[in-house]
């Protein structure tokens, strides 16, 4: 199979998964609860107002027709027309929030910078700390350093992200008073304040994720070091430093990189809790507010966007992994 065909096949597969996922979510959220129109309208609506909202949102149609409208809205945008003023919803339209009639896409776009700031910074922390720890404990195997690191890694694996965050808050903000309680400052507004305020969230999510990466890096490095070609290089008299940096890492790091992409889903869960703890206005807070106010379009929209990111990241990781390692057959 050629590389292009392989890539296209994987991306098509991801698209199918996305369609199935969106249909399942739509069915789940619009069939199960009592009456979406009543939820959209609010508790004090008269039956006449509820009927009007049902008309406006197209909820009197069968669910499959609603879903098709929804899909068309994602591709081409749509307009919710009521008796009075029409409510436009531009191209990737995921519906309008029940609470303030804003397009869900706009709300998600507003939450994205905070979530991205958190995720990228935390990623830097866990790649440095997690991969570093894993490498050191693999290379110092059997020594006291490794045993200390193993215990730390084990403790890190079991620590919930909000406990870690709270303990860091107590230590750094209350006890040592090195940092104030974080409050989000957009990067575009003041980069220095942005970084200072993000420092604690980065550390929290980064430390939380690094335990997993440390374990994976350690086992992956040990496995590579036990392979025949490494023994051959050693037999040729190549120095230990060169063996590790030039040859062992090449085999040990691809699984770690693949995990960073495959793990996006669970990372989003951790990011959501970190956002909630530190009051960052990201996707997590949007979702939780949506859940609290039973704002179905927001909930479905955020889950779909996160689901899409996860599915795409999986497909991309799969493609990169296969292309990088020619031992894996294209299939």
């Amino acid at each position, binding site marked *: 199979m050629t590389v292009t065909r392989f890539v296209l096949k994987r991306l098509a597969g991801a698209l199918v998964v996305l369609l199935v996922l969106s249909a399942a979510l739509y069915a789940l959220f619009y069939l199960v609860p009592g009456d979406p129109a009543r939820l959209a309208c609010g508790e004090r609506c008269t039956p006449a107002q509820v009927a009007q909202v049902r008309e406006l949102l197209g909820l009197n149609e069968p669910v499959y027709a609603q879903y098709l409208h929804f899909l068309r809205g994602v591709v081409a945008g749509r307009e919710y027309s009521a008796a009075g003023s029409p409510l436009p919803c531009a191209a990737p339209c995921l519906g309008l929030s029940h609470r303030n009639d804003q397009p869900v896409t706009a709300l998600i776009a507003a939450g994205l910078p905070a979530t991205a700031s958190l995720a990228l910074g935390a990623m830097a922390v866990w790649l440095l700390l997690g991969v570093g720890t894993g490498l050191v404990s693999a290379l110092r195997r059997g020594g006291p350093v490794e045993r200390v690191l193993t215990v730390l890694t084990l403790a890190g694996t079991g620590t*919930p992200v909000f406990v870690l965050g709270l303990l860091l808050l107590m230590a750094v903000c209350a006890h040592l008073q090195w940092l104030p309680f974080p409050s989000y400052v957009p990067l575009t507004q003041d980069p220095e304040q942005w970084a200072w305020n993000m420092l604690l969230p980065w550390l929290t999510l980064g430390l939380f994720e690094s335990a997993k990466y440390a374990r994976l890096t350690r086992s992956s490095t040990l496995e590579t070091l036990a392979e025949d070609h490494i023994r051959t290089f050693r037999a040729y008299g190549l120095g230990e430093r060169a063996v590790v940096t030039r040859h062992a890492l090449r085999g040990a790091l691809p699984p770690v990189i693949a995990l960073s992409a495959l793990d996006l889903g669970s990372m989003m869960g951790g990011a959501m809790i970190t956002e*909630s703890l530190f009051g960052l206005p990201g996707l997590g807070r949007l979702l939780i507010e949506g859940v609290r106010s039973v704002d179905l379009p927001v909930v479905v929209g955020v889950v779909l966007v996160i689901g899409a990111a996860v*599915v795409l990241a999986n497909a991309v990781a799969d493609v990169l992994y296969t292309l990088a390692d020619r031992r894996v057959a294209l299939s």
Partner: protein
Amino acid sequence: MPTHDTVVAPTAPPPGARAVWRRPRGRPAALAAGAVLAALVAAALAAPLLTAAAGQDPYTYHDDLIDSASGGAPVGAFGGAGADHWLGVEPGTGRDLFARLLYGARVSLLVAVGATAVQVAAGVAVGLAAALGGRWADHLLGRVTDVMVALPALVLAIALTTVVPPDFPRPLLLVLVLGALGWGGVSRVVRAQTLALKGLDFVAAARLGGAGRWRVARRELLPSLAAPVITYAALLLPGNIVAEASLSFLGIGVRPPTPSWGQMLSTASTWFRADPMYVLLPSGLLLVTVLAFTVLGDAVRAALDPRGASRLGRDAGRAGKRRNP
């Protein structure tokens, strides 16, 4: 969750329940973890008795024990701990912290054990169906499992709570949501093991003896699957404890006034300056519980799969495995 584990092809029916018991006896860490968990389970079961012995209950407000001038921090050192309130009181309300922590343990353990049971039952069913149901079933279930494993479980769990009627019992909801989202790993392990077992002599002998497909699944395969499934379940438990605490932390777990550790920690984030004990006590309990489950799970794994060495031991599993296949 162990996602990168290799499944070692079995050559004989795996060891039975006795091995699980015999091996951990020689391991001090596993014994300590078991003792901690036994104490915790006993305390959770006896929560009404213990709180009565302390002369407290988890729901009564004590306005006299909190300092309204400071916004409700407990009066006295260490969160108001003393002879009446052994671990102090909750800031803001003055409710007895010992009682609330104990009742919180009930929620935490109940939800985690229930969710693990649902995950295992669903995973075994799907895994067996995929391994025994023919090529199409295998392909379809395999894709579904892939998606389930990749999807952000916590995000979906949060979202799913919106579509449930408000009067649905919350602990049951948490069990069902976590169970429905977390069976992917079990089903992969069960499928791989079943495929490997299918070719072994004792299964072939049963088939030759005239046993039908379901009889083989029930009488021959299920007992042999017990070891890997128990191992996996033991590793799922701490994850479910954390998941329950996380959902409660986000305000989507059990409803107040029912206490839960996650919920306490979520209010604790506004009290970490004035009342550090209120952060440290639930955090400490949660950490000890998760750690004990993790250590015990590792011991169970080591007992049931002697070839894959302990994650905690000095001997590394995968490199060692490679050298003596």
